[in-house]
Structure formats: structure tokens, C-alpha cells
């Protein structure tokens, strides 16, 4: 067993300090549903300055991560070209290079929410209704390696985040799930969890910590999110950087740095047919282009060179049963994949598609190289669409 689980280790013993990412000549601050009227083209911006606000009251605003000039504003991003602020003329105040810090310590819940939103923190995950809060102290995917360093070198920041979390979250209990029971955070009790993927997958982690697969009222929060909250608490400044594993090192990357710039900085070259993965190797997404700006919730960047793995194929399932034996949710991905292929979504429900935790191990082990997880995700999506249609129809029926 040891041979097959090694690639899934979620700890690596790397506790070295984070390397500073590139000083980008251009940043592309990614937007998702933000308004685009906060800054105009050619506007002078400084680090931490608001560039786009979000209409949602639980969604964070977007800020510039460098000093510069807005080059372009699109629905996807705000492009900023780095530029040193002009020397102040005689008797004039020097131009601002840094946003003013906000003191969060004295704020009540509602004030705190507004303040954190203005610092660019996405509050949705923290505010979920729950009685138990689990801090996922494991690296989310194998290959990602910042968890140990965060827990060891940035404990104080995490604890500041945890203090804010206690104000924000309705949960009464907080448990840190970590690879070692000896690791502690003030304000949380520690539970040891085997640091092997897929234990870091939220639903599986919740089951491991609570001992129940049907546990309700559990909210799992990643270390990355907690650290972001902690940084905001510590500095009172907007979030303008993110911790990322780039291939085999951890970097502190300015938000909006392009993938290309980050790869160049890390000395990684990308060739024809390579896969560039933003996020973990098992659950991340592959990119089609390199001029995409890093977001504040991006956790990792990997390059999988062309030819490393056999190509995905549309071969029929050969019923080897490997996915069934590997599935942590104890379902039959082979059947689900086929039902999905033939659009038999009702059958998917009968085969417990809701139990799937989307860890991706079925596709990882498939010898026929079928995109099993993708097929399951497609079926899930179709089922949601069908259910929405049914609800819409029944609502229509009621109004008549």
C-alpha cells in the first residue's frame, strides 16, 4: 500500500520561509462580478487602492497590488502598469504609495464584516451557518506544500485570523485538523488526521473529525483562507498577495501577477502541449493561456510537461473496477461515468451520485484513461438543471 499512497502525501516537511514573488511590470487584477467603475483608464493607483467594488455584501472588493497606472479595465480584470509615483513638487505632499490601515480589533460583527469586505476578504465561507468549525490544517492537494510552513512560521497570524473568525462565525466549537496532534492554535482544539489525500477533501475531513458521515452544521475552512483573514487582521491593509506553491517551492505572490511572470520568476519554462495547472494537481484547473492574473484565493501553480501521462481517451470502460476500489466515497464511478455518457441522469441518482466528493481519484487510477470525474461532474450539473426546471414548472403551475 505504501507504494501507491506516496504520491498522495499531504505533508512534505518544508518549513522554509516563503520566497518573494516577482515585482511585476504589469498586474491583471482578476474580477468576478465586480463593478468596473471604481477606477478609470490612465488613473494613478497605489498599493492597496480600491480598483473595483463588489455589489455583493459578502464579497471582497478588488485592490491594486502595485503602484502604477490603470492601462485597461475589462469585465475580467483591471490591468495596471507599474510606475513609480512622480517626485512631489516643492511644498506638495508626496503621492500615496500605500493604503491606510484599518484597526479591526474594536469592531463589532456588522462593522467587522463591512471592514473586511473593504479589505478584499470574501466573507461567504466564514459566515456559513454552522455549529462546528473545522480548520483544514492539511495541504488541500498533494503537491501543495505551504500548510506546515503556515502552521509553524505564521502561527501568530493564523491565531489573529481565528480571533476574527470567532466574531464572524456562528459556530461555537473550533477544531484544527492537522497532521500532528502536537500542532496547536490558540482558540481551537487539535485533532490529528492522517495527512494523506483525499483526507483533505472537505466532506471527508468533516467525517473524519466528527466521526459521522451525516454530520450537519459543520463548516470547513482552509488554512489559506484563515491566513488571508489573519493577514488582514494583523496589518489592517487590503489583501494584495497570496501564498502559492509554484512547482516545488512556496512563494508570496502579488495578486494580479500574470502566470507567465510567475513562471519566469520561478525559472520554469513552458513548452508546446504542456499543462499549466492553477490550483492543486488533483482538483485544480488547467489554463489555456499564461496572461491570466493570479487571484487572492489561488493556492498553487504547476506545470505538467507534455507526455508525462498517457492522454485522456474516449475508450469504453473496461470494467477493471479500479475506481470502485479507490473511491473514498464507496460509490461506483465506472457506472456513474457510463450513465452520464448516455445521459441516464436518473440512474446516476440511484447510484448515489450525491455521495461523490469529487476528489478525482477515479480518473487518477483509470487505466482506460476515461475522464471519470468530469463525467460525474457533468451529470451532477445536469441533475441540478433538471431540478431547477422542475421547480420552475411547479411554480408556474401554482400561479395559474
Amino acid at each position: 500500500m505504501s507504494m501507491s499512497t506516496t504520491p498522495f502525501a499531504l505533508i512534505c516537511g518544508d518549513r522554509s520561509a516563503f520566497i518573494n514573488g516577482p515585482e511585476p511590470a504589469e498586474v491583471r487584477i482578476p474580477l468576478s462580478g465586480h463593478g468596473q467603475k471604481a477606477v478609470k483608464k490612465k488613473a494613478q493607483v497605489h498599493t492597496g487602492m480600491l480598483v473595483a467594488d463588489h455589489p455583493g455584501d459578502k464579497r471582497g472588493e478588488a485592490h491594486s497590488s502595485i503602484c502604477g497606472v490603470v492601462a485597461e479595465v475589462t469585465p475580467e480584470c483591471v490591468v495596471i502598469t507599474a510606475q513609480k509615483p512622480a517626485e512631489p513638487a516643492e511644498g506638495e505632499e508626496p503621492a500615496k504609495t500605500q493604503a491606510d490601515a484599518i484597526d479591526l480589533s474594536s469592531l463589532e460583527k456588522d462593522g467587522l464584516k463591512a471592514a473586511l469586505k473593504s479589505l478584499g476578504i470574501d466573507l461567504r465561507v466564514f459566515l456559513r451557518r454552522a455549529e462546528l468549525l473545522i480548520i483544514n490544517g492539511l495541504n488541500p492537494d498533494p503537491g501543495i506544500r505551504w500548510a506546515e510552513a503556515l502552521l509553524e512560521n505564521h502561527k501568530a497570524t493564523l491565531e489573529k485570523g481565528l480571533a476574527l473568525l470567532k466574531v464572524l462565525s456562528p459556530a461555537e466549537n473550533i477544531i484544527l485538523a492537522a497532521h500532528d496532534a502536537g500542532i496547536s492554535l490558540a482558540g481551537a482544539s487539535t485533532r490529528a488526521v492522517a495527512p494523506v489525500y483525499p483526507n483533505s477533501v472537505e466532506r471527508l475531513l468533516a467525517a473524519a473529525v466528527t466521526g459521522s458521515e451525516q454530520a450537519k452544521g459543520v463548516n470547513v475552512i482552509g488554512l489559506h483562507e484563515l491566513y488571508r483573514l489573519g493577514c488582514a487582521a494583523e496589518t489592517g491593509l487590503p489583501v494584495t498577495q497570496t501564498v502559492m506553491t509554484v512547482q516545488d517551492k512556496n512563494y508570496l505572490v502579488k495578486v494580479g501577477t500574470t502566470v507567465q511572470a510567475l513562471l519566469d520568476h520561478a525559472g520554469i519554462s513552458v513548452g508546446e502541449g504542456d499543462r499549466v495547472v492553477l490550483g492543486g494537481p488533483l482538483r485544480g484547473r488547467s489554463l489555456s493561456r499564461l496572461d491570466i492574473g493570479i487571484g487572492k484565493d489561488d493556492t498553487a501553480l504547476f506545470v505538467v510537461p507534455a507526455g508525462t501521462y498517457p492522454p485522456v481517451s474516449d475508450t469504453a470502460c473496461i470494467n477493471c473496477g479500479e475506481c470502485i476500489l479507490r473511491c473514498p466515497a464507496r460509490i461506483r464511478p465506472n457506472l456513474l461515468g457510463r450513465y452520464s455518457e448516455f445521459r441516464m441522469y436518473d440512474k446516476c441518482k440511484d447510484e448515489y451520485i450525491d455521495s461523490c466528493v469529487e476528489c478525482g481519484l477515479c480518473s487518477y487510477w483509470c487505466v482506460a484513461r476515461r475522464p471519470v470525474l468530469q463525467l460525474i461532474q457533468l451529470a451532477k450539473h445536469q441533475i441540478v438543471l433538471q431540478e431547477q426546471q422542475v421547480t420552475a414548472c411547479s411554480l408556474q403551475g401554482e400561479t395559474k
Partner: protein
Amino acid sequence: MANESLAKAPFLAVGAAPHWHCGRTIHGMMRDYLIALMPAVAMAVYMYGLDALRVMALSCVTAVVIEAVCLKAMERDVTVDDNSALLQGLLLAFLLPASAPWWLVILGSAFTILLGRLVFGGLGANPVCAPLVGWAILSISWKLEMDIDAAMLNTMLVNPLTQLKYFGAQKVADISYTGLLAGQQLGALGSSQVGALLLGGIYLLVRRTVRWQLPAAFFGGVLLISGIFYAIDSSQYASPLFHLLTGSVVFGAFFLVTDSSSSPVGKAAMVIFGLLAGGMVVTIRVYGMYPDGVPFAILLANMTSPLLDMIRPKPFGAR
């Protein structure tokens, strides 16, 4: 400007998560099986001469050609390069006597591919082990040609299983087990190379191409039932080790029982399946009309595999 950046940037491969893979492929799996069969192929040629090579080559070629032609006719992708048809052809040849006439080999191989798997949808869709379908049709339709003892008269080797059947356990009581391992027994050309097959089986286990539960439970079933008979009357029934090392037991354990689409998947189901098939082998040998019960025992056990697949754990979070 957009075009300039396009020209410079490499074309990236995109795909759905996960972006890692274990690296195992159908092709690699078949290659492992073929490598595992090589010692037995060499032993078969050593024991039975070029006749064995003739049967194996004919069976393999027929299987590959039939598969390719049929896939083409069905307007499906011709995937014979995954070597699975080649493997099925070789497995069938292992069950034939070295003296099998050419038409018998071609028929058997054709039945293996056509009725064994293509009618069900090809690789991985077969409800029972495909080479056994070919073998069963041949041994029921052409009894004389398939009777190892009748067909192989020009050899000094004796078939321990027919000796057991017709002359009793005393006759085989002092048989040399190392001789059996070395292939000193008359049998089907490949499946009687017990030692070589054992070597291949260990290779498959080490490579994790087969799951250990299936061969282990199959051996367990053979040993258990033959042990019970042996304990009842050791003068009337042969020893468990004799049953293990004769006929196609070792071949069946590693290459037929482990056929993934015709065997169940769950761990408990695999053990029950193996025990059932193994127990059936001895039962057929003791009570049945066939000296070597392995092929029919596995065929029968295959029938239970959909039933055994109903033994499954409760899905995550299901009530």
C-alpha cells in the same frame, strides 16, 4: 497585439482535473500479462516442440485478425493495438493440446473473440472469461481432438489428472511435485507449465496488475475442499498439493480468475468468488466427468459475479 502574444505563447494542453495520473494504461496492463506468460511460452515450446509454437501463433494471429475485421465492420475504432485480443488468443492456446489441428485452433480463437467478447461489446464487456468460452465450445463439440490424452499419443508425459480419475489416488500418491512444477505432466500446452506460470503470476502480483485476493482465494478454495476430501480418506482422494500443481489451477488462478470484467470487484466479493471457483475445481475433479475442472469451474463462478457485485459497502453519507 493579441496576435503577437499568441504567436509567442506555446499552445497549452487543457483538460479536466485531475491533472495527475497513475500512468497505468490498458496497453501496459496487457503488456504485463504477456510478459508474465513468456516463461510458460518458452516452457511450452521446450516441452512440446514447434507444435506448441504453431498453435500459439495461429491462435494469436486469428484472434487479432478477427477482432480487427469485426471492429472495422462494426464501424468502431480498431483498437487491436492494445494487445488485448492478442492476449486472449494466447490464453486460449494455453488451454489447447499441442497437437490441435489448425482448424480447431482457428475456430477456438474465433469463438473466443466473437462469442467471448465482441457480441457483448468488446474488451471489458465480457460477462465470462472469453478464452473459456472458446475452450468450452471446442471441448463440447470436438471431444476427441480436445481430449489431451487421446490427442497426445506421441509423448512420454503422463496426465496425472486422468491417472487420478481412472486409477485412483494410490497411483499418483508418490508423484514428484518438483516434476509437476517443472512441467513434467501431460496437459494443455501452456497451462501445464506450472512452475513457469507461477513465476509469471508472482510478476503480476508484484506489478499489481492482478489483485492478490483473487488468486489467493482461488488457491484457498482448491486447498480447502481438497483438504476436506483428503482428511476424510487420504487413500481415496489425492492430496491438496497435488490438486494445486496439476492441470490448469495455477494458470486459472493468475490469468483466468483475474479477468477483471468477469470477476467481482469488492474485496469480500473477490474472496467469495475465488473460494467458489477453487472449490468447484475440486468438486468437478472428484465428482464430474472432466479430469481437470478448472475451465468449467471458472465459467460457473463467472456466472455468480453479478450477484457477488451486489455485496457492496454503504456509500459515503448514505442512510
